[in-house]
């Protein structure tokens, strides 16, 4: 395709100038406006380990090294915004977490982080969960999923705290060896998390100093209430059976988790000033349930969640995982220009047609093309994305998956450069 030499329009600009331009470019797109050109965000993920010749385990665990690789890759490709890994194993390892596997912990050092779904909540747990989710989580659920916290099962019902001075005799249990062990493990997990948090904040500041806009994911995390009940509690099998066997209990539980997640996300926003809530969606995409089931079990609470977040000054950054082609018409009900959708495998051109007037769209580039395609393939798709999905603004170019494991650096360069060239408005 294009053979003329590529001249980077950002060449020669200072980091401060680039930061200001890129931040505005991202903000304009997020607010459904037309920026000067289409912003591009690279969520490198494990591509950093590949480029740096280190194991994925090292990337997860050696913060300084990951930061070094992130800076190097960012400066090499010069996109508007970048991300490394989004999670770290510290707290999970400290607690013996059964629901995650990290490279080097249950996987070989070059494995991919994976989530291990299970039926951690049994059907007979529904009543206790609905009655008092806090007590059930800490005394029943944590000991099941975090083996280091088994001692918490010895605690009295947490609500006994309301007994004031009469509850104090219960404190002796905190000295029982299994409880002591659990509290120590919690302390180690908290320490690991604090280190990770500091690393994340430091990384964003360093990237800003180098001229890169903050990534779109920064903020709290929440899930559609149906996914909350499915992912970490009932598991896919369990939740799908609940739709038929105990729909009322499922709905009652979802109402609880809607409210507690909103309380958390709003408090997080007020405490940190961060305005994004990241919402990855799992079981609501095409293929898992019928539209009738979607209308009853998935959409109402997901919509209510987004509307309430928006009312509280928070922008939901929603990862529409899987394919949403049959469900796009619902998304038009969301408040205009107040939410963002990252689309994984939906038909991105159809997404633009249906929801382009409602929300900023992120995604578009296929990971398979950046791994196994040719430069011409990448160039062709990029130009099409710029022309059709970028039309009028409200588009952030990223990979649909959000991460870039296995992508070839030379194809990534073609992609970024083509976006800068053809994404100009």
């Amino acid at each position, binding site marked *: 395709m294009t053979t003329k030499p590529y001249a980077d329009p950002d060449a020669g600009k200072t980091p401060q100038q680039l930061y200001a331009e890129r931040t505005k470019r991202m903000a304009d797109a997020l607010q459904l406006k037309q920026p000067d050109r289409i912003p591009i965000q690279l969520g490198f993920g494990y591509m950093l380990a590949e480029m740096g010749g280190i194991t994925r385990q090292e990337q997860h665990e050696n913060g300084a090294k990951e930061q070094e690789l992130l800076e190097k890759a960012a400066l090499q490709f010069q996109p508007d915004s970048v991300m490394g890994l989004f999670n770290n194993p510290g707290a999970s390892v400290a607690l013996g977490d059964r629901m995650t596997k990290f490279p080097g912990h249950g996987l070989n050092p070059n494995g991919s982080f994976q989530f291990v779904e299970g039926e951690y909540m049994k059907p007979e747990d529904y009543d206790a969960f609905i009655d008092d989710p806090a007590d059930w989580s800490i005394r029943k659920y944590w000991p099941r999923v975090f083996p280091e916290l088994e001692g918490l099962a010895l605690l009295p019902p947490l609500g006994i705290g309301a007994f004031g001075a009469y509850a104090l005799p219960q404190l002796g249990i905190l000295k029982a060896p299994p409880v002591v062990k659990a509290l120590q493990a919690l302390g180690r997990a908290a320490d690991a998390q604090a280190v990770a948090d500091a690393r994340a904040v430091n990384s964003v500041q360093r990237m800003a100093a180098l001229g890169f806009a903050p990534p779109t994911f920064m903020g709290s995390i929440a899930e559609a209430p149906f996914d909350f009940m499915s992912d970490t509690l009932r598991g896919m099998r369990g939740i799908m059976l609940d*739709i*038929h066997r105990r729909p009322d209990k499922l709905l009652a539980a979802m109402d609880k988790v809607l409210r507690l997640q909103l309380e958390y996300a709003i408090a997080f926003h007020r405490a940190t000033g961060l305005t994004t809530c990241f919402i990855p969606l799992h079981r609501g995409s095409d293929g898992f349930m019928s539209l009738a089931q979607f209308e009853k079990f998935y959409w109402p609470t997901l919509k209510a969640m987004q509307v309430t977040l928006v009312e509280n000054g928070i922008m939901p950054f929603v990862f529409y995982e899987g394919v949403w082609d049959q469900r796009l018409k619902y998304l038009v009900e969301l408040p205009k220009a107040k939410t963002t959708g990252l689309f994984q495998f939906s038909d991105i051109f159809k997404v633009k047609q249906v929801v382009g007037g409602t929300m900023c769209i992120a995604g578009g580039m*296929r990971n*398979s093309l950046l791994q196994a395609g040719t430069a011409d393939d990448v160039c062709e798709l990029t130009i099409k994305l710029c022309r059709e999905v970028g039309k009028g603004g409200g588009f952030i170019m990223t990979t649909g*998956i959000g991460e870039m*494991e*296995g992508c070839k650096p030379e194809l990534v360069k073609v992609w970024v450069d083509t976006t800068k060239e053809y994404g100009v408005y």
Partner: protein
Amino acid sequence: MSKELIDAITDMREDDALKLTQELLASSTDPLTILDDCREAMTAVGRRFEVGEYFVPELILAGEILKSISAEVKPRLKQGGAAKQGAKVLLGTVKGDIHDIGKDIVNFMLDVNGFQVTDLGVDVPPEKFVEQIKQLQPPIVALSGFLTLAYTSMKDTVDAIKAAGLRGKVKIMIGGGTIDEQICAYAGADAFGKDAMAAVNLAKQWTGGK
């Protein structure tokens, strides 16, 4: 044949299906007939899935109903039912990937369409596929994967089959969330399928079925 039982299963009336089974057994119905009814009902469930009337909740519930009925019926069976005659399919999620939802749906749909599926589970190393191809001699191998690392694992698996001199003996299909034509060519598979019906159609095509 009990149309009532078939309908109860097909319509997801779990309690009715179990009660009817117990009644049929109490009235000395041949247990094999009940299993035939189950098979017919599962085929109907598969058809409703194909046309987009049923989804994952119904496939899982149908599997559960079948399990409960089998538990009632099995103790009364004098001899096993006739062995399945359909072509063999070797199925598994490739090394490094533990996702099983798509694979399980493919298993269900191949099974109700008469194929004999051997499911090797998840995180299956290439050598395991090779060993099982030698042992079972299936005409079809189906590789599933959801993570992007599956691209490489699929390629490694196909390469291992090649290296073992078995590539000419099997047709290989791949599928899963992120799989497309690029990855099919990259991995050296014969075809990729977008969903479970595509897997059934490919399997039929490759074994001369309709």
